[in-house]
């Protein structure tokens, strides 16, 4: 393929999909985090029935294909009178799906804080709310961060599934270009763009981890 066509036609066309991919990722991650926090709270603090409902949600969304969920929300919900355009349907589907994973990440992070930390907080007269606010959550969020960033990176890639309902994100544009030019090597180019987005995100995560790492923690584990 001539370099000019590549530089001035194909690449810009694909690049226009990048902001859409990022919007899908950010919004569905945020939705997943908000809903995931509620689900995690329901499992950690909720009464038995509340916890069971949360568990059921998590098992359902983890146990069924994201593609099916996207199809259901885009094509199935209108039958129930809920109509979302493709962009928002993708965000809702990916966000609801991610919520189940994020809930488990948050729940296990909270559970990973040793019982002794609760005892120490109690012994100092802290209420349950104060114990979670000052002692448990600040530690749990540090435990959860690497896994949450993993989830974010996974979402960057999962958003490519939104192409199937017509959202003009990176992969939709890739497919269009391939069928338009009959040049399957464009898939490689697309993969390279995904990689170029994901790698800095992982790097950023490492930065975040070391910035908020508990000093001495690594040494203490050795």
């Amino acid at each position, binding site marked *: 393929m001539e370099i000019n066509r590549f530089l001035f036609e194909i690449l810009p066309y694909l690049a226009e999909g990048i902001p859409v991919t990022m919007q899908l990722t950010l919004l569905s991650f945020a939705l997943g985090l908000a809903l995931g926090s509620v689900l995690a709270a329901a499992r950690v603090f909720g009464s038995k029935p509340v916890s069971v409902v949360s568990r059921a949600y998590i098992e359902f969304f983890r146990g069924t294909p994201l593609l099916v969920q996207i199809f259901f929300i885009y094509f199935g919900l209108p039958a129930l009178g809920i109509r979302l355009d493709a962009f928002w349907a993708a965000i809702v589907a990916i966000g609801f799906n991610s919520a189940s994973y994020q809930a488990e990440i948050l729940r296990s992070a909270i559970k990973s804080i040793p019982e002794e930390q609760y005892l120490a907080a109690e012994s100092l*007269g802290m209420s349950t709310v104060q114990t979670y606010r000052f002692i448990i959550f600040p530690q749990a969020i540090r435990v959860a961060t690497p896994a949450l960033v993993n989830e974010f990176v996974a979402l960057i890639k999962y958003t490519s599934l939104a192409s199937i309902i017509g959202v003009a994100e990176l992969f939709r544009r890739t497919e269009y270009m391939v069928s338009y030019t009959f040049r399957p090597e464009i898939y490689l180019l697309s993969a390279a763009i995904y990689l170029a987005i994901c790698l800095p995100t992982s790097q950023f995560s490492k930065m975040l981890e070391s910035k908020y790492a508990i000093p001495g923690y690594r*040494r203490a584990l050795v």
Partner: protein
Amino acid sequence: MSSELLSIRGLKAGYGSVEVLRGIDLDVVRGEKIVILGPSGSGKSTLLKCIPYLVRPWSGEIRVDGLVVKSDPATLRSVRVSTGFVFQQYNLFPHMTIIRNVALPLELNRGMSRREAEKTALSVLTLLGLGDLAGKYPLELSGGQQQRAAIARALAIDPKLLLLDEPTSALDPELRYEVVETLYQVAKQGRSMLIVTHELDFAEAAADRVVFIDEGLIVEEGDARDVLERPRKERTERFLRRLRSRVGEPHSSN
């Protein structure tokens, strides 16, 4: 107005279906320093944890400074603020600097501003020789330093009674010394203390009374020197002999 700071009557407690404490009666007079001795599994740590309800007793009554301990939040807070607790594994909050560890409870319980709380915290830390470490994080310190910081944290809220659960047992012998020194220092200030420990020298030098517990019951109690040197019960005597003969574990702090 009784002079009893702590009174325990008929205390029973346990875990699951296992009864660990089988009826404990114990009084602590203001200013008194009591060392609790006993083999592992005898229930001494459970006894200590029952006082501020870190372990909920099955039955019996505990009074701290006249207040009957109950599980409503207001009573619990008030009891826990008047009893400082030092854990075997220090249990500092690893995500906070040492000074924050000490200051936070002051902000939450004494209504101090952050600045006031940190000032008080720093003075307590300095008193225990930890002033230089105020800005460090717990896991950056040695075990001995962490335990002294934990003692500072418990002292800062100015509890009437300090409860210490084997404060030196998790430490290597060479680190015990500094913690024992700190214990002496605290004991000299006249605060009431209830200490579970195997540091016999400390018991002999600093304790007013020694209580020996076995199988969830108080076997023997009395003046520290009497119990340590002339135990009346055979079980106490056997325990002390075993403790003194342990190889490679100096109980001496001098």
